[in-house]
């Protein structure tokens, strides 16, 4: 059966068949889902075709995160299919996660038949009500006549403008009902939705003029560059080359500019490098490209880059002046704006301030010499930072295309700091929502899209237990995802904050009764590995990478290591706590009582 080649526009079919046809027409090859009463008609359609592969997850939240990983690594929308009631409510965390990180998801939920809506029927919930604040848009489709338009609109809205998750709630009777299918063109009929494409050229001109005058410039790029597509990353690299401006990035933007690049300062923000944060603090012109002045980035707002003029490029007008007042706001898609910027820069033969920039680079070199990511690796205990660096080397040795996902905690920050990201779309982490349990299902989603690639979830001993059940999915579909647990036997990040802010009272942050991860892997039919010896780490990492199927690697690391450098709460970028200064005493007093009460 070759359904793709035929044009189904104007054909009569059931609502359930329309769902499948709309997926095909929007280029969908994989969906992540879990069946139940209210979506059985759609599952029946899935069963009778081969164009779209359904990946059966083990928890609907897992489906959501898997679709996020799939979306982030392919640039396409991730698609989720779940049943009504608990199926729908289980996706909420993933929807909010996707909303905060601007990931395009199309989530199709089953609903009880229209005649029963509002009667507290079995497995009924107000799905559109519950998901309204955690989606870009959502629909309850009450008639099969609306279904094709809504499905196509769903893809259009999820993937254009600032991307985000959408929910289409389809009652069971609508899935059974017969109607006339319409093709994707119908989605254009919604005129209130006007995603921004171009940008104001005057604003770009003023931005370029300001940049040409900068003596201490810095580029601060974010997830918007990744979302804009590969071209945006290429243009960003070209802009850095042309202007010789130093560049830092948020957690979400890692990889847009290569970590090995000449002008790279490392990540900025709460756990950013000394040089990145100092450059931000002292700069005279800041160029924010697709980032949103998140509170983990700015530190104390009233002391944020106090002497700078700020340029902000963002596709979402509401991001501009939301947190930080900027001098020039450019609303538009990053790739478009950067292209115009570069063209102007070249046409007007703009030159950066060579002399001033040389001094600025020299100042930055001094900050870099401070070596803010230093740590002491001894011969008996594996330091978590060392483990990440070795993992990076091992992935390089393997020669495989490598994708990294993470859970949330110290391990996530260490991954961001010590794993060198060279390409966009190869790093997936839960930035805005900070969802423990994101990384493993996201890795499953990435591996579905990139069968041959090396996909590693850098995990924590606590986070991994939140979505562990997806190992069953990985085994079922032969997805060789590697879970690399930095096992510190604590909720390390929570413990670190308790040490800093709460007199080291470790309330419920010690991981008790942690499972034997090796046996756990084996119970699922995967491979389990254990390492606590720095001397065998490299060999075991090679074994992990070469293993055919999924692996859980229990890497025992120093239990009480802290994540540095760090901007403590209530402090500015130039008041960082550096690892070599972080004695127990310094940690205990890092945040004064005023900071503690204030923040």
């Amino acid at each position, binding site marked *: 059966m070759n359904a793709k080649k035929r044009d189904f526009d104007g054909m009569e079919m059931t609502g359930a068949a329309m769902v499948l046809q709309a997926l095909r027409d929007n280029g969908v090859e994989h969906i992540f889902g879990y069946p139940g009463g209210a979506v059985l008609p759609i599952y029946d359609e899935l069963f009778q075709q081969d164009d779209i592969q359904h990946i059966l997850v083990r928890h609907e939240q897992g489906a959501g995160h898997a679709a996020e990983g799939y979306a982030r690594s392919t640039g396409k929308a991730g698609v989720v299919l779940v049943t009504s009631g608990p199926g729908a409510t289980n996706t909420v965390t993933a929807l909010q996660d996707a909303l905060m990180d601007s990931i395009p998801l199309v989530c199709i939920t089953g609903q009880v038949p229209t005649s029963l809506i509002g009667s507290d029927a079995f497995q009924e919930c107000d799905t*559109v*009500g519950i998901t*309204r*604040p955690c989606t*870009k*848009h*959502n629909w*309850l489709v009450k008639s099969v006549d609306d279904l094709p338009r809504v499905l196509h609109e769903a893809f259009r*809205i999820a993937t254009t403008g600032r991307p985000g998750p959408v929910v289409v709630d389809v009652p069971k009777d609508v899935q059974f009902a017969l109607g006339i299918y319409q093709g994707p063109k119908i989605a254009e009929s*919604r*005129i*209130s*939705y006007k995603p921004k494409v171009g940008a104001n050229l005057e604003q770009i001109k003023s931005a370029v003029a300001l940049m040409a005058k900068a003596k201490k410039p810095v580029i601060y790029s974010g997830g918007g560059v990744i979302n804009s597509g590969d071209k945006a990353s290429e243009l960003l690299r070209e802009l850095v080359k042309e202007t010789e401006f130093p560049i830092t990035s948020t957690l979400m933007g890692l990889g847009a500019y290569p970590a090995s690049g000449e002008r790279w300062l490392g990540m900025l923000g709460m756990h950013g490098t000394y040089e990145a944060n100092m450059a931000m603090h002292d700069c005279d012109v800041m160029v924010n490209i697709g980032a949103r002045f998140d*509170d983990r980035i*700015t*530190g*104390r*707002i*009233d002391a944020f880059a106090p002497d700078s003029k700020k340029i902000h490029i963002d596709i*979402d*007008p*509401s991001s*501009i*002046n*939301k947190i930080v*007042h900027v001098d020039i706001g450019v609303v538009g898609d990053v790739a478009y704006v950067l292209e115009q910027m570069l063209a102007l820069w070249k046409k007007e033969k703009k030159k950066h301030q060579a002399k001033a920039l040389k001094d600025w680079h020299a100042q930055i070199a001094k900050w870099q010499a401070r070596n803010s990511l230093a740590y002491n690796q001894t011969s008996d205990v594996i330091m978590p930072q060392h483990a990440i660096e070795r993992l990076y080397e091992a992935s390089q040795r393997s020669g495989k295309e490598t994708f990294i996902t993470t859970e949330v905690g110290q391990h996530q920050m260490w991954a961001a700091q010590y794993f060198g990201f060279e390409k966009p779309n190869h790093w997936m982490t839960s930035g805005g929502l900070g969802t423990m349990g994101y990384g493993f299902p996201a890795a499953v989603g990435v591996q579905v899209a990139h069968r041959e690639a090396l996909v590693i979830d850098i995990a924590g001993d606590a986070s991994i237990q939140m979505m562990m059940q997806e190992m069953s999915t990985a085994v079922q579909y032969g997805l060789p995802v590697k879970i690399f647990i930095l096992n510190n036997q604590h909720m390390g990040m929570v413990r670190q*904050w308790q040490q800093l*802010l*709460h*007199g080291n*009272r470790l*309330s419920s942050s010690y991981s008790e009764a942690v499972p034997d991860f090796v046996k756990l892997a084996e119970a699922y039919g995967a491979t389990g590995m254990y390492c606590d010896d720095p001397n065998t780490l490299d060999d075991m990492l090679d074994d992990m990478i070469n293993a055919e199927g999924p692996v859980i690697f229990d890497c025992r690391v120093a239990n009480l290591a802290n994540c540095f450098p760090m901007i403590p*709460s*209530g402090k500015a970028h130039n008041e960082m706590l550096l690892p070599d200064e972080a004695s127990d005493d310094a940690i205990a007093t890092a*945040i004064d009582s005023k*900071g*503690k*009460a*204030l*923040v």
Partner: protein
Amino acid sequence: MNEVVAPPASAYFIVKDNGTPENHTLSILVDNEPGVLARVIGLFSGRGYNIESLTVTETEHEKHLSRITIVSNGTHSVLEQMRHQLERIVPVHSVTDLTVVAHAKGYEKPLERELAMLKVVATGEQRLEALRLADAFKAQVIDANVTHFIFEVTGRTSKIEQFIAIMAPLGLVEVCRTGVAAMARGPGIE
């Protein structure tokens, strides 16, 4: 039990908005589809914006367009955010800050009207006094018998407030108000 200690801290940097809050009237044109009002109101509650008054009804039947008029209160930056956040809602066609438009034209406020119904139960001298005052406010009697009046009054919010205050001691038992309807002055369409 563990030892009890002084209050803790959190992980956020909090800055105070030092701007002065002002009342602004927003006019929002939306597709009249299920859930659209919930989206707008949910945005206000979810982001902690105030609603002082809310008026909504379908205004263009053929195009299924409704106009939502909201009077809100916030500092300049909050009001700017509010407008941009509203514009992100998919069925929202346009958002106009009528107060800003009025200021640009040299007026303090846009044209604003509200309608109120007041039920006054009274007899004797009180009843006569209520009727006299209603006349002064150009309120109409839309229902009455020997023990009560229902007045209808239209005007700016301040006038309605004043009328309600005056009626309060004269046997006012129930009030219903439409909320503010507003429009920019002049021939232009905002």
